[in-house]
């Protein structure tokens, strides 16, 4: 398992994920009711508005097109509350993150058990 920490998604991420079977795209969310949201995503072409604003679905599509593989993937959106400058995330966001991580672990375990 590897963690890649980037500020934005770029086309080159496609080569990074091409060697993996399961990928989670994790980011902060603002316009959502739930504390965290996880949904399975599939390769999907969307017209990119900006070079640095390529959607996770689009990254999957590029990966499939360029490298011929399509890892299982989930988009994880963790609700954030304050995006001002600071040194720590808020307590609520921290709690949301922990819940999301627990759910990600569950998905990983299920995925592994199905693989076996």
């Amino acid at each position, binding site marked *: 398992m590897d963690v890649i*920490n*980037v*500020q*934005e998604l*770029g*086309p*080159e991420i*496609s*080569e990074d994920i091409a060697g993996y079977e399961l990928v989670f795209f994790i*980011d902060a*969310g*603002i*316009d959502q009711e739930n504390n965290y949201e996880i949904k399975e995503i599939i390769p999907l*072409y*969307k*017209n*990119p*508005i*900006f*070079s*640095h*604003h*390529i*959607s996770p679905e*689009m990254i999957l*599509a*590029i990966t499939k*097109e*360029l490298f011929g593989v399509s890892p299982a993937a989930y*988009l994880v*959106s963790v609700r954030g509350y304050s*995006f001002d*400058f600071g040194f720590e995330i808020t307590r609520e966001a921290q709690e949301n993150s922990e819940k999301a991580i627990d759910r990600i672990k569950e998905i990983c375990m299920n995925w592994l058990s199905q693989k076996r």
Partner: protein
Amino acid sequence: MTQKITIQPVTRIEGHAKITIYVNDDGKVDNAYFHVDQFRGFEKFSEGRPFYEMPIITPRICGICPVSHHLAAAKACDAIISAQIPRPAKLLRELMHMGQVIQSHSMHFFELAGPDLILGWDADPKIRNVVGLIEANPELAIKAVKLRKFGQEVIAKLGGRRIHPNYAVPGGVNNTLSIQDRDELLRDIDTMIPYIQEGVALAKDWIEKNRTMVEEFGVFSTGYMGLVNEDGGLELYDGKVKLIGKDGNLLELFDRSEYLNYIGEHVEDWSYLKFPFYKKLGWPDGVYRVGPLARLNVATKINTPLAQEEFKNFKSINGGKPVEGSLYYHYARLIEDLYAAERAKELLLDQDILSDDILVTTDKILPEGVGVIEAPRGTLFHHYWVDERGSITRANLIVATGHNNWAMSKGVEEVAKRYVDGKNITEGMLNRVEGLIRCYDPCLSCSTHAVGKMPMVIDIVSKSTGEVIKSIKRE
């Protein structure tokens, strides 16, 4: 009745902007404006911070060219502590910069400009993007991905991560380059150089086939500014600032610390981005351009062999006089890309690149310091004033896109007048107007984005009634 056409945001650039085009009753374009309508205030909220934090704070201006801000800030900090950094540290910083130039220039040509040039200005916008490129030429697309990744690997091996590295510090850098990392980069660089040459050939071929458009698309006279080395050659990391006039004659050659003597900034009430100009000629006669086209216009040579061969061809375009066409930015950008790859190889082969003599310290705190670097998009100045404790009391950043602000506005107007028919507005016409902006690869600063939050809206509005006559939205 005058119509107002708004293109907002402009797509395939870095950051937020909009274009407003005013069309008269005859369907002709009266005038057009390029607005930068975002404001982030980095200069203001830097005040009070310790100067040595600036190489970490200022890269947050952008996720595409953070290395430029990182290094310009470090150079300004060097000046504040009056440090002459060791040669190995300078080589390592320059290597990181070459990585940034490779990833930024390659991404721009293949992924931002490429859709217009390779798929066509009037191609369906649904496929006129990186995916369309992949479908049209997957082999080329893989090379583009690998080029960007290579550039980012250079940055990551030195600074720990691809974006927002933590590497340059006042007086040098904070880490050495391992033999293993050096060898890995050397192994890959010989693959990258032919990839870039392929891009150069592609650009030249496109120019040849579209000669008429190239010679009329955003062509106008300005001055040009860029760094040059001691021999007058292309320089991206350090050197003197050279300013030439419209005819190519030398106007100024000055040290970075003197920039305020030569550069003024004009303000318009319709844009947050200021308009720099050459003070001695005043506003607007003193407008100039920066970036790849400008750098090749001010340089007399390039000190790497493959790029020098292309440079000779570039110089022949206008008989040695400045090349004025905005579309030539694409060709110039790829020549620089080639130089950056060749220069990266030179740096990696230099024995000092592995040295651990990477930092000097001093106990001085001078009242101010200026850093300058050639960011991928043009000359970038960082100027900090500090108190006796080293806290920032004032900061002035002149970014590459600011220098080109007038040129982009001028170009937008020229292209709109030439291509936009107010009585029969097509998406392809407006894409040409956006395409002018993309020639300059402006970086209007990007930061946090939320999924799905940036639609593009083109509104055509009656100026007299305020009625929206036509609205186009891209998701």
